[in-house]
């Protein structure tokens, strides 16, 4: 606790990276789940699902890691934020249950295929929406006394959080469209390009409204962005966001297979950066900084030793499992 050297910045970086990995990875496979509902026939639905069947489980593991890293490194934030998001967390978890079991059940329980199809598609959309709602209520902040959340379990429900929920559904759909363009061919790819443009319009509208609204709900955030010299230093972020959006729009219309996905990743990076700028150095917005919410130095050190060794190993073998299933989805690999 009174160590000269602090692990807090390292853990903040690991946590930020872990959550960002989750958002990108499960983001694209939840997005694929959202777009799945628009596939017209069984063959293309099979192929779309198989494009993520071998990897979705690993992607979702980053959610567990993000949650547990938050608990381990910044337990006070975990103990305040998670109960405050009681119902969005509930909805997300149940939605993830239905979309997760749909992989196996849809294929092995053919009599109820339509039910599991809906579970997969609506589950994905609802999980994305719930995560967006969490983001929105997190930015708004929570009612806190001492070390506890003292608001109501329904505080999360505001027009602002519903808007961020909707924006994230479009955002994940864009990532999913990027993934499908990368992994499929012909008519599925064509549809993904069309859906991608639709999602891009939605996500831009969402980012625009959230960016204008955030300074209004929070004077601290307004001050962060619009005071001098911040405004000059930070102006590139929204400008780069606009530029990226234009590039994605063009890539969706051209014969590039990786372009839209890379563009969507860039768009998420910029939005993530924007949120980080708005909230730094708070981990419980406007109440507790990263340092105030940190666990003991011994706790952070004990976990860091293993994490610094294990995280690269995880990236290597997770990368390998992506490599094994590289290229366009094949009809003979996965569920049939």
């Amino acid at each position, binding site marked *: 606790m009174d160590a000269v050297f602090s692990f807090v910045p390292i853990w903040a970086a690991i946590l930020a990276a872990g959550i960002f990995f989750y958002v990108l990875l499960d983001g694209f496979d939840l997005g694929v789940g959202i777009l799945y509902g628009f596939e017209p026939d069984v063959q293309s639905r099979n192929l779309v699902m198989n494009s993520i069947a071998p990897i979705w489980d690993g992607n979702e593991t980053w959610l567990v890691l993000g949650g547990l890293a938050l608990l381990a490194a910044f337990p006070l934030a975990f*103990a305040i*934020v998670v109960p405050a998001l009681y119902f969005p967390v509930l909805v997300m978890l149940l939605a993830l249950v239905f979309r997760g079991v749909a992989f196996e059940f849809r294929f092995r329980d053919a009599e109820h295929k339509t039910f599991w199809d809906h579970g997969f598609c609506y589950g994905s959309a609802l999980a994305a929406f719930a995560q967006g709602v969490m983001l929105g209520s997190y930015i708004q902040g929570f009612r806190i006394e001492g070390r506890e959340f003292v608001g109501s379990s329904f505080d999360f429900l505001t027009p602002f959080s519903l808007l961020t929920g909707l924006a994230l559904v479009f955002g994940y759909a864009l990532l999913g469209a990027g993934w499908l363009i990368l992994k499929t061919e012909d008519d599925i790819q064509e549809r993904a390009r069309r859906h991608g443009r639709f999602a891009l319009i939605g996500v831009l509208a969402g980012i625009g409204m959230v960016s204008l609204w955030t300074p209004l709900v929070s004077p601290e955030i307004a001050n962060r962005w619009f005071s001098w010299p911040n405004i000059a230093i930070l102006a590139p972020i929204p400008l780069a966001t606009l530029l990226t959006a234009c590039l994605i729009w063009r890539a969706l219309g051209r014969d590039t297979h990786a372009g839209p996905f890379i563009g969507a990743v860039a768009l998420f990076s910029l939005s993530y950066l924007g949120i980080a700028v708005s909230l730094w150095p708070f981990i419980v917005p406007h109440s507790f900084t990263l340092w105030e919410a940190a666990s003991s130095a011994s706790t952070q050190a004990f976990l860091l030793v293993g994490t610094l060794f294990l995280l690269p190993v995880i990236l290597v073998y997770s990368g390998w499992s992506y490599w*094994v299933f590289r290229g366009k989805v094949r009809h003979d690999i996965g569920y049939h």
Partner: protein
Amino acid sequence: MELDPLFLSRLQFAWLIAWHILMPALTVGLASFIALMEGLYFFTGREIYFRISAFWIKIFSVAFGIGVVSGIIMPFQFGTNWSRYSDVTANVLAPLFAYEGLTAFFLEAAFLGVLLFGRKLVPAWAHFFAALMVALGTLLSSFWILAANSWMQTPAGYRVVDGRFFPTDWLAIVFNPSFPYRFAHTVVGFYITTGFVVVAVAAYLLRRQAANAEARTMMSVTLWLLTLLVPSQILLGDLHGLNTLEHQPAKVAAMEANWETISGMPLVLFTLPDDATASNRFTVEVPKLGSLILTHSLDGTVKGLKDFPADQRPPVALPFFAFRAMVGIGILMLVVVASSWWLRWRGRLFDSPNFLRACLFMGPMGFLAVLAGWTTTEVGRQPWVVYGLLRTADAVSPSLTGEDVLISLVFYMATYLVIFPAGAWVMLRVVRKGPQSADGEDEDEPLVEGGRPSQPVTVELHRQGGA
């Protein structure tokens, strides 16, 4: 009526963990069994092991999928419903949970994809390696989660500052006094549960078609394994019980419905314990046997519940009956395994109708034993969530109302009552199809499609080889 968020949160946690634990009870054992079959196939090249493995991989993937999604829910419960627990214990316990994710979940997830879908894409050794890694992942997962659970039962290596736990000695935290016993007892319990599932499936297949080579191999191999595992488990259970007597005497007193501290404690076979009057009714007991089991001496002294203040006693009836259910199932398992030695010696292991029927009956028993054992240890440590230090009542999230928790509980119940029966049904359907249709990939297409074989038809040859 006032809804109690504490009671409902406990009910919710019990509901979620009880369903969830059924999946690891199967997948921890199956992952090792599949790795064994893949290893035998890799080293002997005999196709029968390949077909057995492919068959169980299908069942494993369903159970594992449900285990993953119901498992993701668990850590979030710490936040949503037990935020005070999180705040108070995180410095000590959270790294153990995080290490579970880092060492186990990613390993399982990455290699499961290759195990399920990669047989055509990677060399044979890599596929075997993937099976080994998935099995290792399930064991590492058990290691960390049971280390955390054991610390809550027998805390060590900590100090308390401002009402919160801080670590002082990580080795003492991970290898706390009850951990080695709990870990061994639980993992062997999971292996035995899986073993009886495999034996029951083999019995089902043999009853349907006596010459089923795969079923014979499954049954023979697994009964050898159980020959080793079941007696070991009885020994481990005894050691675990003695460890509990040392560190959590109130729990053992509840398990035995023992109110008074006495030497030469009888073993209560049946009774109706009453917490309010601190007494038993309708008791059937064997003199001195309780002391013999617990102290390994006829006149050993065992602490009774009245030695503990009333507000530090666990409820008695639940641990008492759950413990008896677990031990009873253990004895049945030993009887079945012992019968298998006799039948094997007589050469009738695969064609005794009564034995096959008994095996079918025992199929789900391991799950009941796991639930009973879990109930014993978790109810028996009440009213504490960290034994002797943090009360369950002080661990619940302060912001929750009874209505909040009732809503979530109803949704969790409804969801699990869809997901788990559907999962069981899907697994039973795979069993009905049997291993002889398994062809390695997750394919349901017939071997001969449109008049052309989609791959060489070699089933007949293998059947002779595997008998």
